[in-house]
């Protein structure tokens, strides 16, 4: 019996690391949900391709705590995002704003698609033109071919 209890204890041990997050969850689930949603929009500065919500870096935890506290203080999402941008620049946003410096970033994929489409269209058209050109025979060619065919038939007969 004691062994089973020990085993269960060991299995539950990893849960301890979640306890702190869960603690916040239990205190105010609605606030925690908002904090999570907002943190998922913010990039962790240390572990660059994770969100603040996902990261376990100390700075990410501090910033998430900031988000919690500011939400609790009644600040809006926009105000909190502004707070982060003032300190860490646009880099902290997972969705960068449309600006002169980011216009290529936003229009790049569309431009590439458009360029590819134009290239495809042009090459298709030249290919069609080429295959038409080979099948088009002049009037003289056709009459020459007819004559040849006729003479062949006459020869057979």
């Amino acid at each position, binding site marked *: 019996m004691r062994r089973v209890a020990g085993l269960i204890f060991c299995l539950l041990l990893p849960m301890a690391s979640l306890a702190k997050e869960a603690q916040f969850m239990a205190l105010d689930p609605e606030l925690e949900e908002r904090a999570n949603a907002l943190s998922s929009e913010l990039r962790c*500065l*240390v572990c*660059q391709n994770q969100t603040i919500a996902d990261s376990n870096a100390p*700075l990410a935890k*501090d910033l998430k705590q900031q988000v919690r506290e500011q939400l609790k203080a009644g600040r809006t999402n926009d105000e909190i995002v502004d707070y982060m941008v003032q*300190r*860490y*620049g646009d*880099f902290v946003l997972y969705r960068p704003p449309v600006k002169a410096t980011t216009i290529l970033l936003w229009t790049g994929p569309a431009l590439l698609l458009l360029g590819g489409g134009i290239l495809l269209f042009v090459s298709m058209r030249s290919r069609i033109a080429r295959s038409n050109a080979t099948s088009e025979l002049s009037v003289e060619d056709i009459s020459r071919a007819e004559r040849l065919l006729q003479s062949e038939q006459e020869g057979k007969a």
Partner: protein
Amino acid sequence: MLKWYIPLGIFLILAIFLGIGLTKDPREIPTPFIGKPAPTFKLSQLDDFQKTFSPEDMKGKVWMLNVWASWCVACRAEHPLLLEMARRGDLNIYGLNYKDQPTDAKNWLAQQGGNPYGLIVVDFDGRVGIDYGVYGVPETFVIDKQGTIRHKVIGPITREELTTKLLPLIKQLEQQG
């Protein structure tokens, strides 16, 4: 003929862009602080918690705020340079001890060969660090006489950075009114 030039052209353009990308350090995030006033704070000093310090106390002086911690490995690399600057009297170097234990901080300074800082303030919970957009210690801010941030170094200061950028900038700022 054109058939061969198009892929070659695309390849060259890609190669140029990727080549430029290689010369950049992805850890270096463009800072929004240059040209902005240094965020204010009021923190206790490491040597005497009763005493506080604010950036306003430095109005009229060119100074440097160096963010460091005893747990920060890269801080060891730049420490000799800071000591050298302090000995030469380049400018006032003030330390922001970031998320550190005061006793650890004092021991670390003794181990690393001395204290280059005119004064050290304690940012125990890292809140002032967030206000300064700190994400990787060490970081260093050069602040002019009006209290405006003029330059930021992310990571340890190198000798090259010191001689080519920091010292000329400090000299220029000192000459300004």
